[in-house]
């Protein structure tokens, strides 16, 4: 049996072997809650695209919200549109109040009355970070920038996906995708699952339910259920990235995805892999798929 781990954002510059080992150890910890361990014949593949995506992000000229304010909207309309839609959806779902956003703006700041009030968008981004991410290596704008580069730049998307496609084999496999890795693995499976002996698909901390993301995926090819043997999506309701269940409303595929919202992710921003793979239910489901 093989486990194919597909990592998420902000992994550039890291050691892929160490990352793979961290995933394995965390999963073993989770399996321990069922008094089981990884079977001895388990192999682990860890396609690493962190540096590749970092390189494309560096080469992109996407403005950050603060750049948009200083230069005015229109520098990269597509990205600005994506950013605005995504953070507005997140803030609505997360129940971020106007007062919270207001608190992020400079006191006495002049308000633009136009339809694209970028100070306000930036305020939302900051409010989200303050309430949810709060970490230096993981901020909402960084996350959305990496997602956008991956989704919108065909070359970047192909380069990232190629790292996973290279590891497609016909041996029995369970695929686990985390964060952006759930988007990458979904795309690859939608295209290549028929060449695999896919025993199950697990997504954790997945942003696939964000409308701005699922719509982009649907426009690249109709949303489909790639796994005949089940798709288990687990998340912590406090994880801002995974704010929507992958259900009929947010990710309509047939047969439906099985959602589990009971993870209590111990990492600071509730999104880290080490707070997901050690969850009893997640590890238990991976084990079930493996057997």
């Amino acid at each position, binding site marked *: 049996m093989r486990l194919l781990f597909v990592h998420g954002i902000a992994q550039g510059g890291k050691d892929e072997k160490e990352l793979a080992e961290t995933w394995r150890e965390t999963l073993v910890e989770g399996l321990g809650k069922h008094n089981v361990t990884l079977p001895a014949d388990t192999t682990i593949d860890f396609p690493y695209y962190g540096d590749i995506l970092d390189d494309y992000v560096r080469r992109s000229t996407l403005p950050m919200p603060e750049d948009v304010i200083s230069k005015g909207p*229109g520098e990269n309309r597509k990205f600005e*549109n994506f950013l605005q*839609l995504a953070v507005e959806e997140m803030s609505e779902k997360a129940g971020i109040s106007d007062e919270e956003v207001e608190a992020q703006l400079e006191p006495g700041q002049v308000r633009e009355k136009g339809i694209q009030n970028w100070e306000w968008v930036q305020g939302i981004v900051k409010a989200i970070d303050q309430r949810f991410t709060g970490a230096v290596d993981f901020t909402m704008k960084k996350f959305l920038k990496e997602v956008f580069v991956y989704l919108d730049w065909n070359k970047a998307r192909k380069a990232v996906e190629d790292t996973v496609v290279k590891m497609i084999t016909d041996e029995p496999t369970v695929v686990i995708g985390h964060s952006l890795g759930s988007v990458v693995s979904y795309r690859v499976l939608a295209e290549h699952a028929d060449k695999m002996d896919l025993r199950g698909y697990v997504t954790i901390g997945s942003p696939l339910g964000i*409308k701005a993301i699922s719509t982009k995926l*649907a426009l690249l090819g*109709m*949303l489909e259920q790639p796994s005949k043997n089940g798709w288990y999506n687990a998340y912590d309701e406090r994880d801002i990235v995974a704010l929507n269940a992958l259900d*009929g409303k947010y990710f*309509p595929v047939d047969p439906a995805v099985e959602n589990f919202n009971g993870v209590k992710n111990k990492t600071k921003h509730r999104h880290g892999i080490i707070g997901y793979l050690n969850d009893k239910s997640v590890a238990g489901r991976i084990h079930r798929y493996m057997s």
Partner: protein
Amino acid sequence: MANRRAAVVIGVNKTGGLTPLKSAASNAASVAKWLRKVEPGYDVTLLTDSRKPVKYSAIENAIFKYTSLPPRYELLLVYFSGHGLYHNRSDIWLLSEAPERPREAVSLNAAIDLAKYCGIANVIFVSDACRSLSATVQQANLNPGDMFPTHAEIENSTTKVDSFRATGRGTSAFEGKIGDEEASFLTHAFRLAYRKPRAEMVHPVEIQQKTIRVVPNRRLEDFLQDTIDEAIAIVDDRLDQQIEVSVPSEDGIFIAPVEEAPARSRGRVAAAARSSKPAAREQPLSVSIPSPRSGTADNLRKLPGVGPSRERALNDVGVFHFDQIADMPSEDRKWLDEKLGSFKGVVSKFDWKSAAKRLVDDTAEVAPRALPRRRDNLARAAANRVLAELELKARDLQPDMNARVDEEIAARIPGDERVAFESETGLLVHGAAIADAVIGRSAGSEWLEILDHGDGQHRPAIIRFWDLQPGASAAVRLVDGRSIMVPGLRGYIGHAHIAEAGMKTLNYVPSANTQRFHEYEIQKDKIEKLRAAVALASEHGAFRLGSSEKADRIGAHIRVGKAIDPTLGVYAAHAYSEASDDASVRDVLEYMRSDLSVDLFDVWMLAHRWPENSKPLPIYPACPLLTQAWSLTGVKGIRLAGAVAKQSANLANSLWTTFGPGAFDDLAQALQQGDIT
């Protein structure tokens, strides 16, 4: 398994004070019933006025339900049967409370444009409605909605939109008694297309590892037209209803599969058993065919004992021609004897086999198979001529239609007037004398002089433009009070051809004292013929890019040297846009920018879903060039200047924008005051 297809089916019998229709609501109900049964299946919303009025908000809600994001459907069908109008070269569906409530109406053209951005891969519109010209001020002032939501998540068009319109521009569609029931002719033809398609219409597709036989949208047009012609001829041979079809989708896109012949009823099975034939045969007789060859059945009533009902019964089992009966084996004849009901044994009693054989011989001697009855109409002929000009495969036309097309094309080719334009820029108006003209002033130095007001016949009006930097909008009043607004383009002489309905062409020819002229001279003959053929086809709504080959060929043929012929650029932008090919529209925009250093209004508008707020280049003229583009300004979020916007209810039914009397003063004032340039 959840359905991947959805349909919004609308039928409105009664609209305001218009003549109540008999079949719109029932046709819609029967279409909805059919779609609910077919596989692959549809989620269907049926809206008819059989119990309560059909409101715009109900349609909008139904469409919204099916187009929410992320997209969950792969195909959406929007069917409308009811009263319709053709206003500003755009279709309007009238709902129950129109026209008294101006918003209780739908702009089909605007809906088609918005549908291109709805996220569903294929959207199909079936518009079984009249396209008569608006007859009252109330009708002209309708404020129709566009049905589809505006999704900010979707920036580029990813949807192919197929459309089937029941009739030609400015003409009526009909309903009548077809067989035993009231039906409108287009809907009748649609239903028949899946029950009895011709063999060449059927295409196999694989869905979930299963092969099914379908009728692709792109193979429907001829059958629909032939069926309408046949059905309408029975009701009233003087009527004519020429459909307009636009299908940019590929062969895999279809509304429904072929309805395979149902298993026989008990009686038929019993009869089949007696004749020791297999009961589950797809066609009941060995000689059965799905539809008449070449679309025309023989008159089977010439057979002894055959009236309308037996003819229909024969047709129902796939018998349309004498030779089928002449060649019929005895077991088929026995089966037919049973099938034909009250007169059992009629086939043998009247010896149909011999009678049919005689009729086959007579037909062969007297009238070797007649041509299909369908006439070439001007729209098809013009589309065909465009193909010929593009050196693509075109079919032979009937000689009289060829002559007609030649004549129409000649009327759209600029004359050989060599007017000396030291300014390199000007406008000739053919077919109408002019009274006045005003030019906009972007740079402040532009001016014009009228060299000749023209005589409205052989001598064109001549206007010379000076000091354009590098373009301007010019408004021209014709002596009959109507007016036009056209772009002045430095280095080009415009030729406006005015006909009874308004401006029918606007051609731009490089000024003789420019470098472009030499390149133009080399291609002149070809480009002018193509431009004229495209103008004629566009006027009849028949300039469409149904294949990538045609789209590519157009791309190559509209170039003159490194530039794009401005007129052909406008036509091509509209055709590319209609085919959801945004990238090609943007190509046209870029080519034209590099040549003209200005944007032409229509190309600029069509090149983007939301044209940029910051305009990199000046845009001329200050209003849509083609009348049909006026219906799209709303969905593109464009605000026309007040003096221009108020003219939208004062447009002639011409291909190129022509204002009715009274507009010129407003436009001239706006140009002189710099409100528009």
